[in-house]
């Protein structure tokens, strides 16, 4: 089943790399039959139930949403170059940061890796022909699109200015913007998340190939399993919370209204009960990608596999217990504050365990600094910093000063952009040959990765300083003394934008002009590398049977026990 050691083809872009696979005599098309060539009409795409095609449908949609969210970010950073709010009105600025947050959180980050890479790879990685419920998978894409259409419609016809956290009573009684319509879009989109999570859980439980035991699963699958648990259990709570806000605003069913005795802080509890685990929905899949990449580009299985696998579950479970750390200054009791603080420290530990294990994987590996590996290294640095700054925020005594400032903004962007998006881009590049059957230009890939890393740090590191100095978040105007740091941040954003545009260009280019990829251009291990690039529609012509050798690099007889 596995390739013998020594028979590993050299990755492309290297001297000695193998030439592209030869044309098979007699094939009418230039490429062999695969899931991409299985149909070319619009209907074959819009009515597909093939998980691989659905993954591409998602890829297009979330890229569009990312672009829109990115445009809002650009406008924000342009406005913040000067202390006065002179580019747009305050009402507009407030809509910009709100809509940036809503789009990036709900329509980009939460679906990104699961809906694109998870959909594409999970069945293949476990040796199945598709997910458990392919039609439900297509439905979840349509639900996503409908949710996005509602939300974009709300944004076009006036926008929403509550902040993505839409705290009451502002969102229920004071905002004059399209709160209910946007809430409806988010509510609908939540079902897309739930259906995807449901599909993954059932698939991973019920459709593993013979020999694929739980502890042989790729860590990518483990992290998606943990993510799916959160999607299933957390998303309904935000759904019902959005519903209650909409009912209060639209039908005056005043559950949070202080005039009736209602409690605005109850809203915060319900909101953060989902929205904290949501951040683990955003980072766990990325951690799964990193596990795969660090193994492939060191040619070693991940150090401490079981610990990394169980850490994913620990993060998912502990993540449900810490929501109050968003509310230390809300009027919550001291005792609650202390409990949430302690638990928040605990949830940092499994993440730390993962970082150490990934670093240890590099030890005595055979490391190749291709584009995906550059993203891994970037992730290791940026996620470490982001995670450590989480400790600052978990420290209640310190959080009182930095909460609601740019320190928090910098923290979550380090994790979500420096962590999650680096993982996403690394994964896209790594599996691009499998998905598209083409090789992207490696030189450009590396340049873009470095530009993203530099641009990112320049954008967000100054924000830590800004936050500690006291600049609150969501500020349109700010005192002059904060200008230098804001200008640095905006300059970084322009570099980051270039770093994001480059892959869009060269990946698209490669779909037509890139060199054709072999089944395993990286010399990696895993079931996905045992099938063609791009794969046939049914993934496997014969059901694979999994043994330990499926994932081995070096000879097991020579394994070192540390």
């Amino acid at each position, binding site marked *: 089943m596995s390739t013998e050691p020594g028979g590993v083809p050299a990755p492309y872009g290297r001297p000695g790399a193998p030439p592209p696979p030869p044309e098979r005599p007699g094939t009418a098309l230039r490429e062999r039959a695969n899931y991409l060539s299985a149909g070319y009409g619009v209907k074959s795409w819009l009515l597909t139930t093939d998980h691989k095609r659905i993954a591409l449908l998602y890829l297009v949609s979330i890229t569009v949403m990312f672009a829109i969210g990115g445009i809002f970010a650009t406008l924000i950073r342009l406005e913040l170059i000067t202390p006065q709010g002179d580019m747009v009105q305050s009402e507009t600025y407030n809509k910009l940061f709100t809509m940036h947050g809503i789009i990036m959180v709900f329509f980009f980050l939460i679906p990104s890796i699961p809906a694109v890479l998870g959909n594409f790879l999970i069945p293949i990685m476990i040796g199945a022909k598709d997910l458990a419920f392919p039609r439900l998978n297509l439905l979840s894409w349509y639900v996503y699109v409908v949710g996005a259409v509602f939300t974009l419609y709300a944004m076009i016809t006036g926008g929403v200015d509550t902040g993505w956290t839409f705290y009451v009573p502002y969102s229920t009684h004071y905002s004059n913007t399209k709160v209910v319509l946007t809430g409806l879009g988010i509510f609908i989109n939540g079902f897309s998340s739930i259906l995807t999570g*449901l599909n993954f859980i059932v698939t991973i439980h019920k459709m593993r190939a013979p020999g694929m035991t739980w502890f042989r699963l790729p860590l990518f699958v483990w992290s998606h399993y943990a993510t799916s648990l959160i999607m299933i259990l957390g998303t309904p709570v935000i759904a019902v919370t959005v519903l209650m806000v909409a009912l209060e605003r639209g039908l005056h069913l005043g559950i949070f209204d202080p005039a009736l005795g209602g409690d605005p802080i*109850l809203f915060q509890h319900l909101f953060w009960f989902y929205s904290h685990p949501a951040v683990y929905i955003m980072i766990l899949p990325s951690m799964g990608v990193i596990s795969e990449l660090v193994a492939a580009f060191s040619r070693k299985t991940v150090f401490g596999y079981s610990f990394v696998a169980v850490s994913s579950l620990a993060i998912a479970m502990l993540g449900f217990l810490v929501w109050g750390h968003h509310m230390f200054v809300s009027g919550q009791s001291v005792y609650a504050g202390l409990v949430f603080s302690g638990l928040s420290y605990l949830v940092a530990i499994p993440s730390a365990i993962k970082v150490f294990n990934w670093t240890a994987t590099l030890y005595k590996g055979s490391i190749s600094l291709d584009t995906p590996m550059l993203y891994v290294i970037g992730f290791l640095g940026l996620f470490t910093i982001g995670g450590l700054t989480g400790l600052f925020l978990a420290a209640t005594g310190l959080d009182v000063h930095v909460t609601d400032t740019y320190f928090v903004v910098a923290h979550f962007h380090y994790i979500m952009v420096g962590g999650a998006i680096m993982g996403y881009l690394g994964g896209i590049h790594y599996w691009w040959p499998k998905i598209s059957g083409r090789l992207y230009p490696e030189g450009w890939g590396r340049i873009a990765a470095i530009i993203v890393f530099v641009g990112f740090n320049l954008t967000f590191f100054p924000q830590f300083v800004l936050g500690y100095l006291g600049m609150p978040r969501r500020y349109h105007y700010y005192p002059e003394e904060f200008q230098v740091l804001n200008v640095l941040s905006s300059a970084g954003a322009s570099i980051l934008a270039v770093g994001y545009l480059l892959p869009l260009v060269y990946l698209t280019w490669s779909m037509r002009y890139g060199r054709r990829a072999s089944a395993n251009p990286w010399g990696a291990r895993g079931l996905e590398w045992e099938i063609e690039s791009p794969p046939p529609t049914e993934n496997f012509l014969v059901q*694979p049977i999994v043994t330990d050798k499926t994932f081995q690099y070096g000879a097991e007889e020579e394994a070192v026990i540390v």
Partner: protein
Amino acid sequence: MSSGGETVHAGATHHPELRHHFESMAGQHEASAFGMWVFIAQEILFFGGMLTAYAIYRNLFYDAFAAGSHHLDVKLGTVNTAVLICSSLTMALGVHAAALGKRKATALFLLLTIVLGSVFLGIKVVEYKDKFEHHLVPGAHYSAESLRGAHGEELPADTARHSEIFFALYFSLTGLHALHMIIGVPIIAYMAWQAWRGRFGPAYYTPVEITGLYWHFVDIVWIFLFPLLYLIPHHA
């Protein structure tokens, strides 16, 4: 490319309902049933958010909740509870009939379930109408005039104010529940039609079974809502 040559298709003929990505009907059935349980877990959290709000406010404003609850018609609520439990019975009988391949009986039981579900919804309309007439719908026209305290007295002003939260939760919870029933009814109707066409039998009745699971869940939610909304005792 893949391992040692073991094929897993059982033979040349498949059950017509076997989807291509499953190896066997048993596996397909297991996956579907498991999927519905996962969905129900999600639904528990969905109602759970609203029930958390209910629990907190009932604790804070007990008298207001008791007064609001006292106004609800316990007789109608009991009838509705009985109706829904009977509909779960007919649903279970329908699943059983489908498993035995009895297409007429299946369709009949499923239709009965729809009838009972509709009775439930009809009674809910009657109840909502009553609230509307008594100005107990939260909003600009809300008034606690028709509510009474433990000894039949009119409510003090702040209890009256808080009673609006009770009714906000009453409408939200029962409305959400009713929505789940309104979604369930066409699904059951579709199952009844498919059963009539002879699609289900011992080898394949999964859709009816998981529809049954959904319907039983909706029933159980009502079993919680009924005492929580209708049966709050006044303090002595």
